[in-house]
Each structure stands twice: as C-alpha cells, then as structure tokens.
C-alpha cells in the first residue's frame, strides 16, 4: 500500500464520478469514511444515489460509519482484468455487511486469502493509492 505519482498508477481509478458523489471519495481521502444517509428515514445509500430506495427522499447527510462489518460473500480473483492487477494475483474481493446494515464491496489488505470465510468480522482500512485518490480495503479485526 504505497502511494505513487498520479500518472504512474496503472490500475483503474474512478472515472466519471458526478460531483454529487465526490463527498464519498473525499471522505476516503480524509480517512474518515462517510456514506449518504437519508434525512427522512435514516436508510444508508451506498453506492451514492440521487434518491432514497426506501422513501425516495432526495435529502441525505454524509454520515460517518463504524467501519466494521462481516463478510457476506467473497471471491479470489485468479485471472486479472489488466496487467496492472496481474502482479497482485491471486487477490480477494469482499462484499461485507456493515454493522449499519448495508453491504459494501472492496479489496482486502493484510488478509490471507486462505483465511477468508463468510461471516468473518472485518474492518475498513485506507489505501492512499495516488495523491488524489484513496481506496478502502477490508482487513481482519
């Protein structure tokens, strides 16, 4: 997990993110993850959405998270999408049910792929991949 110069990062970076969704990415960069939470009914919205899937309210606040959850499902990738990812093979992708009750997907950090189990507790750590972009990953608690 080392930060590299913006132009020399060869994996995929987010593209086409609308300004309304940038607070999520800015929260990662600040190492203070926040996701939308409906002002009317309290439902969390992730990925960011224009409207609440529970009550269709368009009002939301960027709310902090515990950063903790349990693995809902996962896979271990053994055929990479591009050469930049191939050097990491094999690597895991995890979908976790967060303590707040919704699911998020990410890669993992310092977690042996042979230890992965559905139901395993995980927590979020940050990965500053470039000066402008930070990702989050799941690690063991």
């Amino acid at each position, binding site marked *: 997990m080392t930060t590299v110069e913006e132009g020399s990062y060869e994996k995929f970076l987010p593209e086409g993110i609308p300004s309304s969704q940038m607070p999520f990415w800015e929260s990662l960069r600040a190492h203070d993850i926040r996701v939308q939470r409906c002002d009317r009914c309290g439902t969390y919205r992730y*990925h960011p959405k224009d409207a609440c899937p529970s009550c269709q309210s368009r009002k939301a606040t960027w709310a902090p998270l515990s950063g903790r959850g349990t693995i809902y499902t996962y*896979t271990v990738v053994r055929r990479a999408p591009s050469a930049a990812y191939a050097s990491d093979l094999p690597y895991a*992708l995890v979908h976790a049910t967060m303590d707040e009750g919704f699911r998020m997907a990410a890669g993992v950090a310092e977690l042996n792929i042979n230890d992965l189990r559905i139901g395993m507790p995980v927590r979020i750590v940050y990965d500053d991949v470039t000066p402008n972009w930070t990702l989050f990953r799941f690690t063991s608690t």
Partner: protein
Amino acid sequence: MGELHEAAVAGIYQSEQGDLSTRDQAEVWWEAAEGACRDAGIELADIDGLVGNGPAGIGLRSHMPGAGLAEQLGHPLRFHAKSETGAGSPLAGLNLAAHAVTQGLADAVVIVNAVAGAGEGYTSSDRDTSVAAMAKLSGPYEYVYGTTRVADYAVFAMRHFYEFGTSSAQLAEVAVAQRHHATLHPLSVTGRRGDITIDDVLESPMIADPLHLYDCCIINQGAGAMIVTKATQVASLGRHAAVVLLGYGEGHSHLDPNSMPSMTDCPAAKLAADTAFGMAAVRRDEIDVAGLADHFTIGVILGLEDAGFCGPGEGGSFVEGGGIGLDGHLPINTSGGHLSFSHAGFCGIFTAIEVVEQLRHEGGERQVDGARVGFVTATGGAQQAHAAAVLARA
C-alpha cells in the same frame, strides 16, 4: 389492435460463430439480415421496421439506426426502437417488434446482433481488451479493486454455496450438459472440441473462486438475426411453423450488486418470469424446452430458481444427473448456450433462436421431441436487467 400472440418469429439466421475479426461488421450484419429474410420467405425490400442496431457505419448512423438502414433499403422505415438491457436487448427487442407488428406500426421487423472486425470494448476480437472492458462494467466503485465479469458472478456463486450447499460439481453439470448440446450443433464454437466431463470442469483453471474456466462463457464473435411478422403471414407462406410470443416480462433490478436484498435470489428476475407466465397463462410444468441466460453456470442455477422451475436453493439438485440435458426433466440451452455455442455481443438472441428452432422441430439431433412451448430468459449485466418470454408453436 392485435394481441401480442398475433406476432410471430417468421425468420431466423445464425452466421458462423468464432473469430470473425477479418470480416467487416456491416457485411456480417447484412448476411444475417438477408439470411433471416430468406428463412422467412420475404425480401430485404419487405423490411419496414428495425429493432436495435443497424449495420455499423460512420457519422450519425449508430445514433439513428432507423434512418441509416432506411437510406440503404431505399424506402422509409415505419418503426425503430431499441432496448438498452445489454445481452438481454434482443429478447426485449422481440417484444418491441411484436408490439410494432400487432399495432400496425410495421409489417416486417428485423432484429440483428452482429459482432465482427477488430471490434471495440467488450466486442473486441482481442481477448485481453475484451476482458478489461467487461471488467469495468462493474462501475468505478468496484472496478478500482480489480473486479472482472467472472468475479461479479463468482460472489453470487460463493454465497449460493454457503446458503444452500450448492457445489462446484453441480455447477459443472451445467457446463457438461451444454457442451454436449454444442457437439450436436454445427455452428457452435466449442462443439468440435467434443464432450467434457465433470472432472474436466473441476480440473480447469480457477478464474474467480468458485468459478472454473469451464463455468464461464466463451468469448467470440458472430451474428444472429430474427424477423418478426404477423403469425398469419407465416402460416400463409407455409415455410415452417409460426412461433408466437405468448407472454413477455421485464425486470430491471440494480446496478450495484449490494443493492440486491440478497445475492441468491433476484426479485426483478422473478418479476420478469411471473409477468411472462401470467400473460401467457402457461404453467411452469407446461414448458418443454428452455433457454436460460448462462453467462456463467451459476446463472442457470439462479435462473431456474428465479423463474420458479424449482424452489430457492434447489437449482443445484435440479441440474444433477443430466437434469437439463436433452433427456432431462427440462432441456435447457440445447445449442450449448453462451457457455458453448456463442457469446457474441447481445448474445441473448442466440438463446431465443435456439428455442425457436426447437419449437419449429428443426433441431436435428438436438430436437426435444414434440416441443410446443418454450421459455427464454436474457440477462443484461450481472443479474442487473432481466427479460423473460414464453414462446409457443402456433
């Protein structure tokens, strides 16, 4: 104003499938359109409606496909429409075409899916380019972590294994049955490689746990086309049985898989199937042959459960022991499907064409005896958009 079942698939055509990188996309498009017209017993000049894309070209042609085709046919088209449901687009297109014909908006509608030439993105003839383009279909919140289309389905399979005890050997049953079907289809990409066994699947390289190479669809190019007219016209031409659209439904689900309440069932897929069966007034046990979206073996398991051919979690045992083979309780993807026949472009068209051939009793060695009612699904993305249709031999 007519009923949906007054429209019929009048003509079908499938080109060679495989590597068409040395051919021009437009040439292959026209080959498919002409082939489907010939099969229907009509001329290109009779086409007055287009659903989906026309032949590739320059300038505005891809944005105004109806105008682009009309200019080349030399007469105005009366109808154009397009569904944006990825691989499901041609099946959704069949519904659009049937509506156009029954509402008097067109007499002969052509639907073509053609992939050839160098291609771009996920239709590229270069495998690495295609894999990278498909990887990004998960969107920026996921593709930054190195998702692939295989991984997008692998997480469904992993959860299904956990909840229901579904096994890799059960998934392999799907690949084995469909490869056998492909060996009986002269146009299939993999048929000439011969049958595979469950052990072959289990010993093939792991791509994204728990999906092995043979759990995945092939990557290839090729074309397919359908002509839709009134069923009465098919009957009067007398070339083959009319295959009519008895029922149709859609279900648009989500973009982020974490928006699904569960990864082991899909309410939108159920909605599509229930709508189609309800409109057709047909029961599940009346289906003689089916084509279920099979980008990966787990897709067939999920498809069986969501469409109501078995209960939740029972898809694995349904496919065991040749359950979806030609002699099984429900023959599925009898051409080999996306796993073994073709996965070119908007590949749902091939799934539908095979069911049409079965209902016409033109399946040759693959024929399901006496097939009269068929069910077809098409899925866009990773369980994201669903179309379902009940077809019947008129």
